[in-house]
Structure formats: structure tokens, C-alpha cells
């Protein structure tokens, strides 16, 4: 008996099974597909816990789900309407089993997963609900787990999911890859949802590092699925993948031994995940095959500059300022302006940084963002104005969103004294 099962096996397989079943049953029977998936996982648990894990656990689960699907189809084909695309193929015993077997082939299932991802990003569904749906259906996160990760209440997430699933069922059909025009629009929504998921993990307010790193890992996995299909492996997909890989590579160095947040300049670069960096650079190379660059391209290029600088003082700040200029043209937000100001301060000194911060339009929108106050504090401190710096760091502390941030600003306050 193998001592353990591959990490996240149940989660990942749940997403694959429910996608395959929804394809066969039809999106209006999503709840049925979820029930059958749950049954298959329960069965696996019941059998494996006493008999041991089979040689190929994924294949075992798929076979179990397939047999359960056949039972449901036989039992309910007169009472329910299933996916119309299969027409009468599900009605006769001659065609039922071969059709379902075909739908459970590895190739079909990976298409089904993508189809489900596109379906979850239906324009009728709000972005935060899209993310909840993807996590629930494709990543096998339970309601409590989503609520826990997003520091939301169980009831709120349950309601959000119920409404979104109702909308999905109403939409009657799964996303159709045949309709070319829609793909790029919907793919943009998917990228955005995946990036939000990643950011929630990377910068999010959850106090537990493990919870947040799981969100990052899931975002990377979903993006990886997109890179494996010809219709979704676009330059933007590669750029997003590159960006997330390069950020994730720095995760092992983000906290110091005391568990405090480490700034880029203080990070021990030997802890960076060199394999992830290589992956990120490879993806960035694949992303470059385009005339139109997206914000993901620019952000990936910025992150690549950091990832390839041997030490903080070797960073090409001039190049990074240029990239932030480009990013600001695509996405002219106060946060990008703040990041640009920080890069300019690195290149030209803290006094220039303060000028840049003062010139940010709509600066009010940054008033709740702790790192705006922190940047003001850093520049003042570099100019020797300890008292001014102190006030700004105290503001930052007041605005901090999690324990690690708070601790970080406390240390900055100590540095002013």
C-alpha cells in the first residue's frame, strides 16, 4: 500500500470528473454532475481506506465516475433531458457505453475542463463569482475553503455560488469553442480571473501563508491548462503564466526567519526558485510572438528584470522605469503610478520619488493602500526626515491588511526612532 496519495489528487480529479459529467449531462444538470462526482470520491475513500490506493488512482476514479454516469443515464433517461449535443446516442444501449467511454478519454476531459473554465466566465456572472465558481467546480474547493481563503462568510460564498450556478444552468449550454469570435473576449475574462486569484494568494489579506500559497498554486495550474490547448495558448496566456511563475519563484524568500515580510531589496536571492524562474523566462519567450503586447507582457518583463538581477544593486532601474511607463499607458491607475514612482526613486533618488508621488492623479484612491504611505515614509526616511517618515509609517500600520504587513510597518516605525 503506498503510504500516501499525491497531494491535491481529489481536488484536481473532482474538477476533471465534474467537467466531463457536465458535458454529458448538460449544464442544466450541473447539480447532478456534482452529486455523482461526490459519490465517486466517497466511493474511492471507502474502498481505498481499507484496501489501499490503486496503482493508478486517477484512472480508478475516472472508471468509477464513468460507471456511475452510465447508471444515471440508464436510470433517468426517460425522466430527464441530458446534453442535447449527443441526441439519441445516449438512448440506445448500442451507442450509450461507447459514447460515454469516448467522453471519458483523457483528451476529451482536458477539453471539458477548459470548456468549463470558459463557461464559468460567462459575462452575466460577476468577476468575484466567476472566481468562486472556478475554485469550487474546477479546483474542488468547498464552500468553507473558499470562504476561509477570501475571509468571507460561509453564507455569503454559498449564496454567491448558488446564484452563479443558477445563472450557469439558465445559460442552457456550455461554452462552444466553435464560435471563434467569442473566444478572445472570454479568454480575457479568464486571464483576469486567474490573475485575481493569484494576487489574492500573493498579496491577499489571509494571515496563513499556506492558504495563500495554495491559491497561487491553483492559479498557476489553471494557467498551465490554458497553455496546453491550441485555442487558449495565446501570447497573453504565456505572458500571464510567465508573470505568475516569476513572482511565485520569489515566494520562498518573501518571509525572513522570524516570519516577517522581506522587501525585494532584503531578500536572499539564493532562496529564489531557479526552476520557476527558468519556466517564467521560457514562457516570456513564448509570449513574445505577438505584435500586441498586453499588461501581462509588461508586468512579466518587469518581474523578469528583478528575477535576473544577481543582486538588488544590479537592478536595471532605467529599464524598469521605461516598462512602468509602458504599463501606465495600458493601465493608467494610481497603483501603477505609485510603482513607477518607486522605480524612479531607485534610479534618481528619493527626492524625485516624492515629486512623483505628489503628482499622482486621483491620489485619493491610494489613501487606503498601506504601501502608498509606506513609500512616502521610505522616501522621507532616505532624506533623513525621520519625524515625517514616522507619521507615514504609522498611517501604513493603521491601514495594514494582515499580520505580516503590520509587523513589517512596525519594524519601519522602529527604524525611525
Amino acid at each position, binding site marked *: *500500500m503506498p*503510504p*500516501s*496519495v499525491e497531494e*491535491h*489528487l*481529489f*481536488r484536481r*480529479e*473532482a474538477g476533471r470528473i465534474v467537467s466531463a459529467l457536465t458535458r454529458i449531462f448538460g449544464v442544466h444538470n450541473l447539480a447532478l454532475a456534482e452529486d455523482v462526482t*461526490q459519490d465517486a*470520491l*466517497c466511493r*474511492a*475513500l*471507502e*474502498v*481505498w*481506506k*481499507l*484496501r*489501499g*490506493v490503486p496503482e493508478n488512482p486517477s484512472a480508478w476514479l475516472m472508471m468509477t465516475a464513468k460507471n456511475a454516469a452510465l447508471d444515471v443515464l440508464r436510470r433517468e433517461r426517460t425522466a430527464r433531458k441530458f446534453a442535447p449535443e449527443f441526441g439519441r446516442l445516449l438512448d440506445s444501449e448500442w451507442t450509450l457505453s461507447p459514447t460515454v467511454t469516448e467522453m471519458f478519454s483523457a483528451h476529451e476531459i482536458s477539453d471539458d475542463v477548459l470548456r468549463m473554465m470558459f463557461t464559468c466566465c460567462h459575462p452575466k456572472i460577476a468577476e468575484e463569482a466567476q472566481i468562486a465558481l472556478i475554485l469550487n467546480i474546477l479546483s*474542488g*474547493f*468547498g*464552500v*468553507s*475553503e473558499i470562504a476561509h481563503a477570501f475571509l468571507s462568510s460561509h453564507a455569503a460564498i454559498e449564496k454567491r455560488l448558488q446564484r452563479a450556478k443558477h445563472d450557469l444552468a439558465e445559460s442552457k449550454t456550455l461554452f462552444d469553442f466553435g464560435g471563434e469570435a467569442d473566444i478572445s473576449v472570454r479568454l480575457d475574462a479568464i486571464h483576469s480571473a486567474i490573475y485575481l486569484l493569484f494576487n489574492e494568494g500573493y498579496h491577499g489579506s489571509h494571515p496563513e501563508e499556506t492558504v495563500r500559497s495554495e491559491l497561487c498554486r491553483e492559479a498557476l495550474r489553471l494557467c498551465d491548462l490554458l497553455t496546453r490547448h491550441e485555442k487558449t495558448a495565446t501570447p497573453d496566456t504565456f505572458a500571464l503564466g510567465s508573470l505568475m511563475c516569476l513572482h511565485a519563484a520569489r515566494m520562498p524568500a518573501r518571509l525572513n526567519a522570524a516570519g516577517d515580510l522581506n522587501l525585494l531589496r532584503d531578500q536572499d536571492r539564493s532562496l529564489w526558485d531557479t526552476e520557476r524562474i527558468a519556466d517564467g523566462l521560457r514562457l516570456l519567450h513564448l509570449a513574445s510572438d505577438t505584435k500586441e503586447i498586453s499588461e501581462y507582457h509588461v508586468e512579466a518583463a518587469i518581474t523578469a528584470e528583478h528575477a535576473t538581477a544577481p543582486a538588488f544593486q544590479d537592478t536595471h532601474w532605467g529599464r524598469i522605469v521605461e516598462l512602468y511607463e509602458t504599463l501606465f499607458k495600458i493601465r493608467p491607475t494610481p497603483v501603477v503610478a505609485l510603482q513607477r514612482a518607486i522605480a524612479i526613486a531607485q534610479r534618481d533618488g528619493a527626492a524625485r520619488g516624492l515629486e512623483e508621488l505628489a503628482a499622482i492623479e486621483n491620489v485619493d484612491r491610494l489613501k487606503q493602500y498601506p504601501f502608498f504611505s509606506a513609500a512616502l515614509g521610505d522616501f522621507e526616511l532616505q532624506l533623513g526626515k525621520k519625524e515625517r517618515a514616522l507619521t507615514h509609517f504609522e498611517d501604513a500600520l493603521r491601514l495594514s491588511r494582515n499580520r505580516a504587513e503590520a509587523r513589517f510597518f512596525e519594524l519601519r516605525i522602529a527604524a525611525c526612532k
Partner: protein
Amino acid sequence: MSEFLFLYRGGSLMTRSPAEMQATMQKWMTWMKELGEKGHLKDAGHPLDSTVGKTVKGAKKTVTDGPYAEKDLVGGYSLITAKDLAQATELTAGCPIFEVDGAVEVRAIMAM
């Protein structure tokens, strides 16, 4: 040494998330492994399918469906060796079935 049967009863998994189920399974495997290493596991036994079954009863051999839907339906069994009933009962301590509100029935197997 005497032999005992562990009957695993009840314990609903239907509301558990995939990650929770995997964690539960991991605990079962750890528990089973420990029983085995300490020489208490004579036979890991088998799970019993709770969705199909028949009961044949009485002189007329009346056949009915089930038993289903009983809260504490037997879902599986293992064969255990232990010094006595007290030790066998202690061995259930680490069983993950208690986390899902299930029960372990410890029965002594009568020797020849």
C-alpha cells in the same frame, strides 16, 4: 491473543470537500499502517457497498431490498488481534470515523 472484528458504522462524507476527503483518507491509511506495524491487523477487511443489498428473512425466506438509509449502517470491517477486549477497544482511538460522527463496533470473535 484474541481476535476481534471492527465493524465501521455510519459516518457521512457527503458534505465533505475533496481536500477534506483526501485528508480523511490519509488519516485512515496512517491508522491502518500503525495497527499493522504493531501487529494488530490480521486482515484490513473490506468496505461494504451501502447502495445495493438484499435481506433474506424468516422461514419464508422473504427477500427485501436493503438495509439502506439506516444511520449506522455497517460500511466495512477489519479483523484485529489484541490481548483482550479492553485493548481492542483502545485500538479504535485513532480511527478517523469519529470525525464524521461514525462508530466502531468492537466484537469479540468466539474461539474454538
